[in-house]
């Protein structure tokens, strides 16, 4: 990394419409937070993709590791009662 002069990596989250969640859409390189925000704007919102942006230093993201797969996620496989499939949702609810 010592020869890399393009700056640290930042993760970019774009909100498509007010009220919607910010969704991860990619990453940018930048040397500071203002540059990260501007680079994200220039790379990820140039075709009207969003109304709000978040950038987060990639190093600040804590991620689960592949070894966690069994302990973290498999126990949910057989718990179908946790899905909201046993009752009827009102029509007005569209973002479940």
């Amino acid at each position: 990394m010592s020869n890399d002069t393009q700056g640290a990596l930042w993760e970019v989250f774009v909100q498509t419409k007010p009220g919607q969640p910010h969704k991860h859409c990619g990453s940018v390189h930048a040397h500071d937070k203002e540059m990260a925000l501007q680079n994200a704007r220039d790379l990820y919102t140039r075709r009207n993709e969003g109304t709000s942006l978040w950038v987060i230093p990639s190093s600040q993201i804590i991620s689960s590791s592949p070894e966690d797969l069994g302990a973290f996620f498999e126990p949910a496989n057989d718990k179908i009662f946790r899905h909201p499939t046993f009752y009827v949702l009102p029509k007005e609810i569209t973002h479940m």
Partner: protein
Amino acid sequence: MLFNYLLRIADTNLIMSHRLSEWCGHGPVLEEDLALTNTALDLMGMANSLLQYAAKVEGKGRTEDDLAFLRREREFFNTYLSEQPNGDYAFTIMRSFLHDAFDFHFYTQLQTSKDETLAALASKSLKEATYHLRHTSTWVQRLGDGTEESHQRTQKALNELWRFTDDMFDTTDDDKKLIADGIAADLQIVKANWQKTVTEVLSKATLQIPAAAFMQLGSRTGKHTEYLGYLLAEMQHLHRAYPGAKW
């Protein structure tokens, strides 16, 4: 009169856009490559709208393409600043910054033009110019207040470009009439605001505005530095080689 005034704004946008587009594929990092070409496209859009309007005002059946690709060097009225070659990245950023600060305050004034088309185009461009200025002023600060080398390069760019800054505010007698009629933007007001912005940003960037120096004027009447001819040769080549080419 209005035709010539429109060419002044359109040409500056067009030539600056061309200069920035020369960075396409050569930016220092991918992100900046795209940032500069985004700006180039904004400026191109404005040039296109203004040349369309100019062609209509002229009323001789010319199109925006005729105006962009079939005029000669002395028939262009872009600023000296806009035609200067890219140089290093500090030079490009400084050139854009001085220009963007002008654009921001210029469109702010032009928004209230009595010419409805100009006022509408100015409001649209002001949003773009606001971002351009934010982008280049943060870069000027980053480079000016960065490493010893980036500071030196940015200061050198400022020293070399400063003599072209008064030229942006130059007015012809016709311009003065348009200003009095409330159609053109009052460049005295623009200049006072421009100086404020530029002084503030350059001081944050720890850069020194060159002491009173020779100011080169003349682009308002179609005079140019030696660089515009080469730029036009490249920009107009395709259209002149294949007249009416479409894609």
